[in-house]
C-alpha cells in the first residue's frame, strides 16, 4: 500500500558563516517520509544529521530548499507559526531528555497539551505515564528519576499529543545498553500504536536497524 507522504524535503541546503568563511553543512538533501514510517538518519559526527533533523522539525530554516510537514510548507512560516505546527503535529525526544526541572513528571507531560489549550491534559498525561510504566512516579521531579525514567517521561511527553511525526535525537545516547534497549522498544511500540512517523538520528546501529529505512549522511549529503 502506498503510504501518504507526511514529511518531504526538497534540495535542502544549510550554510553557516565561520571565521574560515562560509561553510555548507547540509548540501542538497531531498527526501520523503511516509506516514507511520520509521527512518533512521545515520552518519559520522559532523555529517549534518542533527541539522537536517532540526530543519525537518522546523527548529531551523534551510538556507535554500523547501520542507512540507503534514501537508503544510514549513519553510514559508514564521517562527511562531512553526511553533504552533510543532505543538499540534510534532513530538521530540532528545539525548539529554530536556525535562523542565521545576515540574513533576506529570506536569512535564501536561505541558505541550496545556500550550495547545487542551482541557483534558491531566487525564491524558496520567494515562500515558501509566502506559510507559511510570504511573507510580508521576509526582516525582526529574532530579528524583533515573536516566531511563527521565527518557520515558520525555517519550510520554512527545507522544501524548499523538503527533504526526516524532523526532528523536540520539534517544539512547545517554543510557546504558539495557535501559537503551527498553527505551528503544517503547519508542517503536508507541510508533506502531499511534501510527506516528518516526525520524531518529542515531549512532546506535541496533536502533537504526529496527527502522523501516536507513538514510546515511556524509559531508552534508545523503549518500543512501
Amino acid at each position: 500500500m502506498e503510504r501518504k507522504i507526511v514529511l518531504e524535503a526538497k534540495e535542502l541546503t544549510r550554510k553557516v558563516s565561520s571565521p574560515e568563511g562560509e561553510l555548507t553543512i547540509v548540501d542538497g538533501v531531498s527526501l520523503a517520509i511516509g506516514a507511520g514510517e520509521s527512518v533512521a538518519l545515520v552518519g559520522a559526527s559532523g555529517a549534518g544529521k542533527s541539522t537536517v533533523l532540526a530543519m525537518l522539525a522546523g527548529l531551523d530554516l534551510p538556507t535554500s530548499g523547501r520542507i512540507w510537514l503534514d501537508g503544510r510548507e514549513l519553510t514559508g512560516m514564521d517562527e511562531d507559526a512553526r511553533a504552533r505546527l510543532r505543538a499540534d503535529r510534532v513530538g521530540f525526544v532528545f539525548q539529554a531528555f530536556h525535562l523542565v526541572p521545576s515540574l513533576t513528571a506529570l506536569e512535564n507531560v501536561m505541558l505541550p497539551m496545556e500550550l495547545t489549550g487542551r482541557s483534558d491534559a491531566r487525564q491524558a498525561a496520567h494515562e500515558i505515564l501509566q502506559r510507559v510504566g511510570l504511573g507510580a512516579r508521576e509526582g516525582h521531579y526529574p532530579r528524583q528519576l533515573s536516566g531511563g525514567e527521565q527518557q520515558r517521561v520525555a517519550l510520554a511527553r512527545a507522544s501524548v499529543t499523538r503527533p504526526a511525526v516524532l523526532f528523536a535525537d540520539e534517544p539512547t545516547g545517554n543510557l546504558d545498553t539495557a535501559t537503551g534497549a527498553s527505551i528503544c522498544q517503547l519508542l517503536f511500540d508507541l510508533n506502531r500504536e499511534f501510527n506516528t512517523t518516526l525520524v531518529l538520528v542515531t549512532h546506535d546501529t541496533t536502533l537504526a536497524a529496527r527502522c523501516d529505512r536507513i538514510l546515511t549522511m556524509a559531508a552534508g549529503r545523503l549518500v543512501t
Partner: protein
Amino acid sequence: MSSRRAAVLLGLRSLGREWRSGDLAVLFIALFVAVAALTGVGFLVDRIDRAMQLQASEVLAADLRLTSPDQISTTYETEADRRNLLHARAAQLISVVLKDEATQLTNVHVVTAGYPLRGTVRVSDRPFGAPQAAQGVPAPGECWPDSRVLAALGAQVGDVVNVGAAPLRVTRVLISRPDQGSGFVDLAPSLLMNEADLPATQLIQPGSRVRYAALFAGDRRAADSFSLWLQKNKKPAERLGDIATISPEVGSATRRAGRFLAIASLVSVLLCAVAIAMTARRYVQRHLDLAALLKTIGASRADVLWVCLTQLICIAITATLFGSLAGFGAQFALLAVVGDLIATELPPPGFMPVLLGFAAALLLLVGFALPSMLRLARVPAMRVLRRDMGPPPLGAVLAFVPALLAVALLVMQVSGDMRMALGFVAGLGAAALSLMAVALLLVAGVARLRGRLGVAWRYGAANLARRRAESVVQIVSLGLGLSALLLLTILRGNLVDDWRARVPQNAPNYFFVNIPTQDREDFRGMLSADGGTLSRMLPMIRGRMTQINGEPVAARRFVDGRRGEGLAGREQNLTWSAEIGPDNRITEGHWFTAEEAGQPLVSVATDMQESIGLKLGDKLTFDIAGETFETTISSFREVQWDSLQPNFFLMFPPGLLEGAAGTWMASAQYRPTDPGTIASLVRRFPSVSIFDMDDLLGQVRSIIDKAVLAVQGVFIFTLLAGIVVLLAAVQVTRDERRYESAMLRTLGAQRRTVVAGVMLEFLLIGSLAGIMASAAASIGSYFVSTRLLEIPFRPDPLIWIGGALGGALLVCIAGYIATRSALLQPPMSTLRYG
C-alpha cells in the same frame, strides 16, 4: 486553557524551584535591597528635607512672611483660613523705652498670639541668662525686653517700663527671636509685647515708621499655592518673603544640602540598577534551555516571555513590598541612631517614598531586566540540539536606551532637576563606556600574564580571561557601584570640609553696630582689655539706589524679577573699605587701588549683579542722606555670605562717603569675663547695639550638622546597598564555580588550591574594579563638586589605595561567603546532580 495561561501557570509552578535554585532568590534580594535602600533613603531624605525647610522657615518665623509699611489687610488672613494655614501678625517700630530717667531706643516687636509660627522665642529669667523656650507671647500688660534694654535702663524682671505711653511689666528677658534676622537690618535692642497693648502706647501716629508683617505657615503644598496667590493679589508695596529672598546664608546651606542628598539617593538608584541588570542577565542565561524547549514543544515567543515575566512580576511585587517595608523600618533604625543629634522633631514619614519605591522598582525592571528578558523570546529552538546556539546579542539600542531612560526618569523624580538629571545620565553613560573599555584592556592584560603564574594564580587568571565578557560586566558593574561609593566619600569630604571652612570654629560671635566714629578707638580698646578680638570693623551708612545708567530703579525691569526689585529698590547698608576681606573674591574688574581712593566707584556683590543684571562700567546713582552720588561699577565680588563676617552688597572706595553721617560696625571673637561686662559696655557706649551671634551661629550650625548627619546616614545606607550588589555579583556565578570546583577536585586538586584560585580571581576582579572606580570617582567628583555643588574640589590620593584595597577586600569577603558552600560541596554530589 489558552497557551498564555499555560505559560503563566508554568511560571507560577516553577517559582518555588527557581527560588530554591537561587536565581530568583538573588533577583529578589537585589531588588529587595535596592528598593529598601531607595525607600529608606527616600524616607530619610524626604523627612530631613522637610525638617530643613521647616528649620529654614524658622528664620522667617513662618513659611511665608508678607511685610508692608502699611497695615496689612485682613483679607489675606481670611484666605489663609480658607486654605487651613496658620497665621499671626507682627509689627516692628523703633521707639524709646523708658524707666525712670533712663531711656533706650528700642526695636519694639508687637505680636499676636500664635507668633512665631515657625521656630522658637527664647527667654530667660534674668539678663544674659540661660535661654529657654518661651510659652506663647507676652500677655497684655506685659513685655519681654532683651538684656541690652534692661542693662541700659538698669531694670530687672518684675519692673515696669514704659513703651510709649503704655506701662508694661517685665516678666521675662528676651534672648532670641527666630526672625531676628541674620542680615544686619534688624539690629537695635529689642522688646517683645502683645498687639493688644499697641493702641495704649500711642506710638502709631500719622507718619510713624512701622513695618507690618503677616505670617503664614502650614502644609507645604498649601503654603506654596498660597504664595502664588499672594504674589498675584498683594499690593505693590507689600513684599513677600520666603527663605531664598530673606536669608541667603540658610538658603544656600539648605540648597547645597538638598542637592547633596539628592545625589546620594541617585547613587542608591545606580546601585539598584547594577544589581538588577546583573541578576536579570544571569536569570536569562539560566533560562535559555527552557525557552528553547518550550519553543520546540510549541510555545510562541510571547508564551516564552510570559513564563519569565510571570516570575519576574511575582518577585517584583513581593520584593518591592518587603523592600518598602524594610526601607520604612530602616529609616526608623537610622533615626534611632541619629535621633538624639537631630534637635528638631522630624515631620512624620510621608507616603511618597513608598510610591517612589514601587515606581522605581518598575522602572528598574523595565530598564534593566526587560531588555535581557526579551532575548529569551529570541532563543532559537535549535538550541535543544545545539547548546552553543544562543539568542542574538542585545542590540545597542535595547541594551542602553531603556536603561538610560529609566535612570533619567528616576533621577528626574529623585532630584526634580533636569540639569542634574541630564548630567547624571551623561556621566553614567560615559563612565560605563570608559569602564568597559578599560576593563577589556585589563582582562586582556591579565590573560597574557597567566602563563608566568603559579597554579592558583593561573586558575584565577584563567577564570577571569575565559569568562571575558562576564568578567568585564562584573568589573564594570562593581566598578560603577564602587565609584558611586567612592564618589560619595570624596564629595562628603569636600562638602564637610567646605562647610567647616565656611563656618569656622573661630567665627565672630559678637557684632557691634552703631559705634560712633569718635568712639571707635575707645570701643576697640575696651573690648581688647576684656580679651575680645575684633575681626573686622567697617563703616556703615544707609542709602538707596535711585538710578541705573540714568534710568530710575522703579521703572526698570529686572533679570530676576522679585529679588532684583527687592535688592535694588530697598534702603541699603553701604560701606567703604580699602581692603577686601578673604571671604570676598573679585570675579570681574579689580579691587580699588590706592590711587582710586575718593573716586566715584563701587564694587557690587555677584548676587546683586545677577539679580539686577549689571555689568562693569554701569553707572549706579545713590541717594545717601539726601545727597546724590553717581558711581561707576569697577568690580564684582563673589561674597561668601555664610562666613558670618559683616559683608555688604555694595562697597565704595575710601575717601568718597566719609562726609556722610554714618556709624561703624564690628565683628569680634569675644568671651566676656562675666555677664556684667556686657552691661557696662552698654552703659559706656549707649548707642552701640550688641548682638550675641552664638544664637545665630547655633542655628546655622544646627542646620549644617543635620545636613552632615543626613549625608552620613544616606552614605551608610548606600554602602550597605553596594555590599549587597557585590554579593549579588558573586552569587550569580556560583553554579559555574561549583561545577568547576567539583571537576578540579575530581582531577586531584586540593581544596586549598581551588579556594585560592577562586579567591585570586575575586582579588583581581575587586582590585581592577577598585582602581577603575577610583579613577571614575575622582573625575566624577571633580565635576559634581565644581559644577553642581559649587564647592572647591580637593583630590584625595588615599581614594586610589582605598579603592583598590577596599574593592579587593569586599569582593573577596563577599565572594568567599557566597561561594563557600559551592566550593566545599563534595564533588560527587555536584557531578551527579548538577
